[in-house]
């Protein structure tokens, strides 16, 4: 187990270094110098001040040195100062917006698992029935549904038509005067649609994988053995079958994390949720390079952590991988 962990950690470090190189390269794709934006916004800036800035970002040095300098600071969680007018530290800005994005993504992951796994199992067990057909159609629709369109439709129906749910932000006007209970309910009401939208595609995908995985498992010999032993069919499916069928799902979940994080740009933008996705959108639009690099890096770290959890989960369920 220890060698397994060491190997995984080493792999993660290499991947992390690779990701930072790619993020760094992308910033340098942009025409002109990163400081151009900063100086264009302040036309009064003197050549001396500009030179000072370029020195601060190390722009007078070769690209490899710049990368080394940046990487050293990133490890200390120092992403520099945002280019925006408030000049706050990038890490502070990310830190205050990260929790809401994380909560929404974790909630969607849990919902995806809670809904997709039972659907997948039951459509595998009842293969070729009407139920299986209906879920299959549902899966195809779910796969093809653009998240932002679903968001628009839901906003139109529940927000504009029925006036049942709020369509933007996290808090209603007058939030400060609500009781504690009222505050909780208010935030939850704001979160229903975003969480639904961000889990919709995942439910379709994971339930499809679960169905396929379960179908594979049902064909295995040990399932026939369990049946021959006279175990009840529920016990066969949920104890012998499920554990084996869940294995590939763990991997798929790990792989779907970048998609979830990337998708937060879309639903946070549509629902005006002040999370990391929205911050990324704003930073990209205003070419706030330090902030863009910071969020790209944090997004990658989150993905790596997610993958690590998936690997650990896999190792916990399947002793063969620990060797």
């Amino acid at each position, binding site marked *: 187990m220890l060698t397994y962990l060491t190997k995984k950690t080493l*792999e993660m470090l*290499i*991947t992390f270094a*690779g*990701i930072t190189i*790619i*993020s760094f390269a*992308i*910033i340098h*794709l*942009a*025409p002109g110098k990163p400081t151009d934006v900063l100086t264009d916004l302040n036309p009064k800036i003197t050549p001396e001040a500009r030179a000072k800035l370029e020195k601060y970002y190390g722009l007078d040095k070769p690209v490899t040195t710049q990368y080394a300098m940046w990487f050293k600071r990133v490890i200390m969680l120092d992403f520099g100062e945002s280019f925006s007018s408030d000049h706050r530290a990038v890490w502070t800005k990310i830190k205050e917006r990260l929790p809401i994005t994380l909560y929404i993504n974790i909630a969607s992951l849990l919902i995806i698992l809670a809904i997709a796994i039972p659907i997948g199992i039951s459509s595998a067990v009842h293969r070729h029935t009407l139920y299986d057909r209906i879920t299959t159609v549902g899966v*195809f*629709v779910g*796969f*093809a*549904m*653009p*998240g*932002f*369109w679903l968001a*628009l*439709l839901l*906003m*139109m129906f529940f927000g*504009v038509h029925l006036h049942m749910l709020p369509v933007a932000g996290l808090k209603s006007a007058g939030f400060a005067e609500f009781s504690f209970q009222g505050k909780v309910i208010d935030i939850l009401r704001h979160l229903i649609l975003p969480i639904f939208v961000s889990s919709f595609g995942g439910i379709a995908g994971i339930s499809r994988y679960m169905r396929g995985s379960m179908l594979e498992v049902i064909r295995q010999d040990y399932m026939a053995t369990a049946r021959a032993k006279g175990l009840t069919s529920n016990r066969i499916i949920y104890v012998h079958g499920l554990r084996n069928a869940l294995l590939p799902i763990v991997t798929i979940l790990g*792989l779907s994390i*970048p*998609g979830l*994080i*990337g*998708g937060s*740009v*879309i639903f946070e*933008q*549509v629902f005006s949720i002040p999370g990391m996705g929205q911050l*990324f*959108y704003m930073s*990209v*639009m205003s*070419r706030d390079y330090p902030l*863009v690099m910071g*969020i*790209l890096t944090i*997004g*990658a770290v989150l*993905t*790596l952590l997610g*993958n690590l959890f998936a690997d650990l989960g896999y190792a916990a369920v399947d002793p063969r991988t620990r060797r």
Partner: protein
Amino acid sequence: MKIDAVINRLRANKMAAAGGIIVLCLFLAAALAPLIAPYDPEAVNRHSVLSAPCRAHLLGTDDLGRDVLSRMLFGAGISLSVGFVSAGIATAVGIAIGAAAGYYGKAVDAAVMRFVDIMLSIPTFFLILAVIAFLDSSIWNIMAVIGLTSWMGVSRLVRAEFLSLKNREYVLAAKASGASDLRIIMRHMLPNSLAPVIISAVLGIAAAVLVESALSFLGIGVQPPTPSWGNILSAGKDNLEIAWWLSVFPGLAILVTVMGYNLLGEGLRDIFDPRLWDERS
């Protein structure tokens, strides 16, 4: 498998046939758009701003009085070209990288697969967003960026196929007779691993269409006045309370299109999968 055998199975497979028909309709809409569109898709009309669907404008008009049906017909071409070109780039890059890893193995394979893992751990949508916003959002940049961030699946497939084909007799025979690596890869190994690549390319078109529409919706994809389904939806969001038609129709077009490619891809998977042949005949 012969081509006509594939076509026969394609006809028998309802999923693939439905998908094929949808894609065909899309091609027709795109090709005939200049002939059948009732209005100029970019013509602004101050007198018919945000008009609901009616006889003059079957799908209504947008906030500048442009005809939504005409814009959607022209948008079909954008959607098609972005889908095919991006998926084409992804497939070509994926084949090249996967073939190198599978054919040469060892250090090349290890290095290449690590690179694939790195690409798979970056939230791709963040990457695409950053690149497009920093360069300019011309349609060529969009295609290139989507293609260059979505080749990893194909490369994994090709690598796996090549690893299993590498030691087959006909490959060894070609090697023994002195054929070049490139020739062995292109003439002997690739044709024998095409089925999964074709399937994943078709599914890749669907994914590219979704990404393009999301980018255009966020305002960094296809730029107005050029019509795209995503940027019509963007106007739909701004007028959510008064103009449902701006949100409903283009989104439906994206949904049906993506479903068409997915059905075609999944249908092809069944057609190419020899394990399923007995079950069907």
